């Protein structure tokens, strides 16, 4: 291939984007003062987008849907917002915000989603998918056991990707820009030739997968042709680098509607091209920012067709175009470049937004100017989140990574993740108290747990029973995951994304838990106070009477924080024992998205005094109002959850009113930097930051039309506040807003 202006390296001969970035990066240590505002073209386009999203909200969340076409990489003609103003082009369809059918995850889901808007798929497709074509969803339910269905319907296992696409896989979209697709095809062909017999299941499957990937790469070239772009060759300048990278991502979101489809960490990569063009006098800062603004605008316009029920677990119509920004290389240099700033600057140029889900990889050694700018952006927009670069880099052994979905490390182009939603750990604890029966229906879930008949709950006995319950829940959870991922590979394989990832990558399976703070406080109550179960005539515990006081998670009190850390370690250990499809490595997260509301609904009263049906705290957060010693004590409690026991991520959402963060702008920025440095030095993994007044949220509930871009961080991502259901809005408002006297 022809490489003119770049420093050579291993990357020149084989696919290795990291090497290219390492050899060519220009780290930036300066301030944000070089940044510029949006161009007139960008402003014009954004006005059209704002109008379209308004129409979307007014039309029950969907502006239009195509009911005749199965969306694939090369489906649909070229689409534009307003061609003459676009410097970065490409839409998922021929029309802005038009949603499409991607029926291979599950046709019934597509039908349901359409019917909620008074639509049906065209007759041919309906006939095909009813009679002849099988989907992921069909396959999963063919294989599910009665036991899995029981765990699922009673809410022990929730939000499983068995009727929607699993997502979480991050294609290394940079590859298309750096190498051009022809090179990638050749490289995959070489790989395919090397995959030889004996023809075991795994070998046959891999050969089929790589062949699919090659077809998909050809389809990407076709997609480019529709926009008059020659993606077969490498990008030759900054505009093309941004355009090629976006086309690769666009291919992915045309073919798949995975719950979360992250972008990776493209900003540092793109900076190399931009830096080159600026140095050569081809463009100025104005064009550089224009490319990034318009790229980000396109990412904001990505849509998938979802059914209403989906909103319960993933509220606000998220797409998780997560872009990891910043961080450090193993060699001690920072990955921060001017384009890291340019990405953040889009939150001013286009206003706050949940997407792309910008995630700052925070490290003590990041340039101070960048740290301050991130803190300022966070305070001004509540649109970004922070993750501990040092912790993840060292623990996971990779410095070129993206964030899958909300909080999970993923080595780019080298590894993928199997998404596993989560289990309800609070409900699992109740099994330990109810002789293995569901606390709401009385259904026997787990055998071998003796009912607690004593007047007061005994800590040791509950812990022993809890361990048995965990073991069984882990087993059934693992069974369901193996089925789901087997079927997803079979019926809805992510060929476009996998084409941009090494052949046969390492895989980790991403299990998860919800209800951690409830478990910790419940165990603390049983251990340090006296908890008397109130039982119904059927012997099921329907309530608890607590006598005495007990320490609550969120106050930096080791007595209870250790119980939380232990629950995480114990359940993770149970999961680690079980073998996984494709030999995936088991990992776990403490993350709820917005499902903490619906999980709470499905969970009876708990020994910590929480009444039946009350929402859980999100992610690894302490329960609202129980953290009485202020923000730092609360952060310190969460930091005690050991990342090694929860390598898929530990999500914490930190909300504070501006006045409490500091008396003026400069002290707020300074204090937020100090909080992040302090929190991450404690080996915490993740934090969402909201700097907002409760009154703003209350007013936005009353007058949503005045707050179309009000963004708020929830567990691991951000949403437009006005797109949440009323129930979810109220839950966000009830949550602890740190507010000192």
């Amino acid at each position: 291939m022809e490489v003119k202006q770049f420093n050579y390296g291993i990357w020149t001969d084989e696919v290795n984007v990291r090497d290219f970035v390492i050899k060519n990066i220009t780290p930036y240590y300066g301030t944000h003062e070089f940044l510029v505002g949006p161009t007139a073209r960008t402003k014009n386009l954004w006005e059209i987008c704002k109008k379209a999203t308004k129409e979307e909200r007014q039309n029950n969340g969907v502006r239009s849907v195509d009911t005749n076409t199965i969306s694939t990489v090369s489906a649909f003609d070229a689409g534009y917002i307003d061609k003459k103003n676009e410097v970065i082009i490409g839409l998922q369809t021929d029309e802005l915000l038009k949603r499409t059918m991607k029926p291979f995850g599950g046709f019934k889901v597509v039908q349901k989603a359409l019917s909620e808007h008074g639509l049906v798929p065209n007759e041919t497709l309906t006939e095909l998918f009813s009679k002849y074509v099988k989907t992921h969803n069909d396959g999963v339910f063919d294989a599910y056991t009665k036991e899995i269905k029981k765990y699922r319907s009673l809410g022990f296992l929730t939000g499983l990707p068995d009727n929607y696409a699993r997502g979480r896989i991050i294609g290394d979209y940079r590859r298309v820009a750096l190498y051009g697709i022809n090179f990638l095809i050749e490289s995959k062909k070489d790989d395919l030739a090397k995959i030889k017999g004996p023809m075991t299941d795994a070998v046959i499957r891999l050969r089929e997968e790589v062949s699919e990937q090659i077809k998909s790469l050809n389809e990407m070239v076709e997609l480019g042709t529709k926009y008059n772009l020659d993606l077969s060759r490498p990008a030759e300048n900054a505009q093309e680098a941004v355009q090629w990278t976006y086309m690769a991502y666009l291919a992915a979101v045309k073919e798949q509607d995975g719950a979360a489809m992250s972008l990776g960490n493209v900003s540092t990569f793109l900076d190399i091209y931009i830096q080159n063009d600026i140095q050569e006098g081809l463009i100025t800062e104005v064009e550089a920012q224009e490319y990034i603004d318009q790229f980000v605008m396109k990412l904001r316009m990505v849509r998938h067709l979802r059914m209403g029920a989906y909103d319960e677990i993933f509220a606000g119509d998220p797409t998780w175009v997560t872009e990891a920004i910043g961080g450090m290389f193993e060699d001690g240099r920072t990955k921060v470049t001017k384009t890291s700033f340019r990405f953040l600057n889009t939150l001013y140029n286009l206003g706050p937004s949940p997407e792309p889900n910008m995630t700052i990889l925070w490290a003590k050694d990041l340039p101070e100017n960048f740290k301050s700018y991130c803190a300022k952006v966070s305070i001004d927009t509540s649109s970004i989140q922070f993750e501990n670069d040092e912790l993840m880099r060292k623990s996971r052994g990779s410095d070129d990574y993206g964030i899958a979905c909300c909080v999970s490390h993923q080595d780019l182009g080298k590894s993928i993740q199997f998404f596993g939603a989560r289990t309800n750990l609070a409900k699992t604890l109740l099994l330990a108290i109810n002789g293995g029966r569901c606390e709401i229906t009385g259904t026997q879930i787990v055998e071998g747990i003796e009912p607690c008949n004593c007047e007061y709950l005994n800590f040791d006995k509950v812990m022993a029973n809890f361990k048995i319950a965990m073991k069984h829940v882990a087993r059934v959870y693992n069974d369901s995951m193996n089925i789901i991922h087997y079927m997803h590979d079979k019926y809805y394989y992510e060929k476009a994304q996998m084409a941009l990832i090494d052949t046969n990558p390492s895989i980790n399976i991403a299990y998860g838990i919800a209800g951690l703070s409830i478990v910790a406080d419940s165990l603390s109550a049983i251990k340090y106070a006296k908890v008397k179960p109130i039982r119904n005539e059927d012997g099921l515990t329907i309530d608890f009477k607590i006598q005495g006081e007990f320490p609550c998670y969120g106050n930096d009190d080791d007595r209870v924080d250790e119980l939380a850390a232990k629950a995480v370690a114990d359940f993770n250990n149970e999961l680690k024992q079980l073998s996984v499809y494709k030999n995936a490595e088991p990992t776990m997260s403490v993350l709820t998205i917005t499902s903490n509301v619906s999980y709470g609904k499905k969970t009876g009263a708990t020994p910590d005094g929480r009444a039946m049906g009350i929402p859980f705290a999100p992610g690894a957060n302490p329960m609202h109002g129980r953290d009485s010693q202020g923000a730092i004590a609360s952060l310190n409690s969460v930091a005690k959850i050991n990342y090694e026991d929860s390598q898929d991520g530990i999500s914490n959402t930190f909300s504070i009113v501006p006045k409490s963060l500091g008396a003026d702008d400069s002290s707020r920025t300074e204090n937020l930097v100090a909080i992040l440095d302090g929190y991450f030095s404690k080996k915490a993994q993740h934090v969402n930051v909201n700097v907002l007044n409760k009154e703003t949220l209350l007013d936005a509930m009353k007058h949503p039309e005045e707050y179309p871009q009000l963004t708020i961080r929830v567990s691991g991502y951000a949403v437009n506040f006005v797109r949440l259901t009323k129930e979810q809005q109220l839950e966000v408002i009830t949550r602890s807003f740190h507010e000192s006297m």
Partner: protein
Amino acid sequence: MHSIESFGTHDGPGIRLVIFLQGCKLKCLYCHNPDTIDTSGGSLMHIDELVEKAVKMKPYFSEKGGVTVSGGEPLLQSKELISFFKRLKQEGIHTNIDTNGRILNHFTKTLLDDYTDLVMLDIKHMTEEGYKAITGVPNNETTFTFAKHREASGKKMWLRYVLIPGITNIPELLHQMGSYFKNYKTIEKIELQPYHKLGIHKWKALGWNYQLKDTRENTDDEINTAVEILKNYFKKVKVN
């Protein structure tokens, strides 16, 4: 002890662990923590435990932050605070006391001179009558004696002043305060705390009568005027 705030951003420099001690001999009309006044309330806490809390917070303190002891009136427990602050200084943690400056005994002097990096001295009122009207007790120069002692020790001090329209926010009083302190070298800044009524519900909960019910809050202009006056005398004037 009354309570703990692990993220104090308005009680001294940087991010601070603020420990509110129980008990105060004054009953200021505008007190926004009236539940800390009763000297028989509160709970006991081991110094070890408090030190441990502070040490756990150290990574958040950055260059500026540390521990602030507030109240109530912390100097009522000067003797105990000596051992606390001594331990904090061994840990390299910045120490700060928020006080009305009425106590200046042997223990207080040791605490202030040897272990307290910063004192925030509350100037209630420049006149004897005004002081008594606000606090319920005579001043007898205690505030000024305290300030003189701090100045003589050469260690840092901030002044704090609650601005109440018509009571303390009166130009001639502000000039008087400025003239009195203008030559003090240890004063880094003066913090103005505009009067607000956020503590009223606590007065109600205690069954006490809140006498300033009809007093209004400052207008922005009134605050700005006060700042401008004080800028003539102090290096730094900050509205908190």
